């Protein structure tokens, strides 16, 4: 409960922060914690800001192949947390994410990463069948399965709350955020995946982020 509250507060602050900067359409903000790091270069003291970034990970995808941070190194990606037997928000999230997939299909600079939080039932083959039924082919949209430790360990790095909870429908509690991550693994946006308007904003922001890499 306390954790839940903390995550909510963290998110409200992030949203407030991003709202303040939304007038600047040229560049998206970098979200998450940041700390100044002071180093000495040629006798001078230089202070740099170190931004929160997604640490390396290793999961199995729907083809039972390992995926790591390296898999996503040349693309921006949208991450979310779901499970295949989810009776509540997941169908809405993936109905919306499917629109994102269709818009950026075959764009090598864009990937999607859905983590399953049902680490027992959602094996790669279950995820494969789910992906096919959703109409996904190829590996642009990765469906990650991992252990309880790795999946629940990575979700706070994306600032998404997930929890095994018998009290809720389906047995898992999670937030429906779509997290936009850049090529340096910095979080550049968080969008409510159940809200079509926010998903439209996500796609707009993805275009802005992609234009950062245009030379």
């Amino acid at each position, binding site marked *: 409960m306390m954790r839940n509250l903390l995550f909510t507060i963290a998110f409200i602050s992030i949203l407030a922060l991003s709202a303040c900067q939304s007038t600047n359409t040229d560049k998206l903000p970098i979200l998450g914690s940041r700390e100044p790091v002071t180093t000495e270069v040629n006798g001078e003291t230089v202070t740099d800001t170190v931004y929160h970034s997604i640490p390396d990970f290793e999961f199995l995808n729907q083809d039972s192949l390992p995926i790591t941070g390296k898999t996503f190194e040349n693309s921006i990606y949208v991450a979310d947390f779901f499970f295949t037997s989810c009776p509540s928000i997941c*169908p809405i999230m993936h109905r919306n994410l499917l629109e994102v997939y269709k818009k950026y299909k075959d764009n090598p600079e864009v990937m999607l990463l859905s983590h399953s939080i049902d680490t027992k039932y959602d094996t790669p083959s279950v995820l494969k069948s789910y992906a096919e039924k*959703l109409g996904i082919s190829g590996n642009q949209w990765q469906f990650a399965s991992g252990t309880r430790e790795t999946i629940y360990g990575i979700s706070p790095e994306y600032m998404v709350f997930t929890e095994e909870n018998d009290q809720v429908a389906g047995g898992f509690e999670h937030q429906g955020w779509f997290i936009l991550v850049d090529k340096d693994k910095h979080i550049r946006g968080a969008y409510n995946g159940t809200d079509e308007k926010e998903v439209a904003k996500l796609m707009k922001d993805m275009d802005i982020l992609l234009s950062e890499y245009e030379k």
Partner: protein
Amino acid sequence: MRNNWIYSIVGIFTISIFILSCQSNEEIEYAHYYVNGKTAYETHCQNCHGAKGEGLGLLYPPLTDTAFIAKNKNNLASIIKYGMSGELIINGQSYNGEMPAETHLSPIEITYIINYIGNSFGNKIGHYTQEQVQQDLINARN
């Protein structure tokens, strides 16, 4: 000029009252079921089946197969309450998932939902009564 406005507003109001009172009780009852059905649909069905009954890929079937809905109208209550599994052919596509049971739904809520689905997304089964729903549920258990 201002009086003209007032007269026309009062006129339109009076005429609409006449029209409304001309509606048969059956129509009013149907409207009541349909409106409540939309709310219940949004709560219990829309996540998977979509706002336009469009379904989602081959995961969740659409509710736009009018022939299927018409043919199975007496099974809808049991499907909603007790769920469904096994292969289904909807709009010529095969679906083989599992629809969860919603046993907590009361017959009146199920009636609302059937009236909404049965008369939306291209379907036209007409008004479906609660007595029929109760009979359907008894038949499904036997």
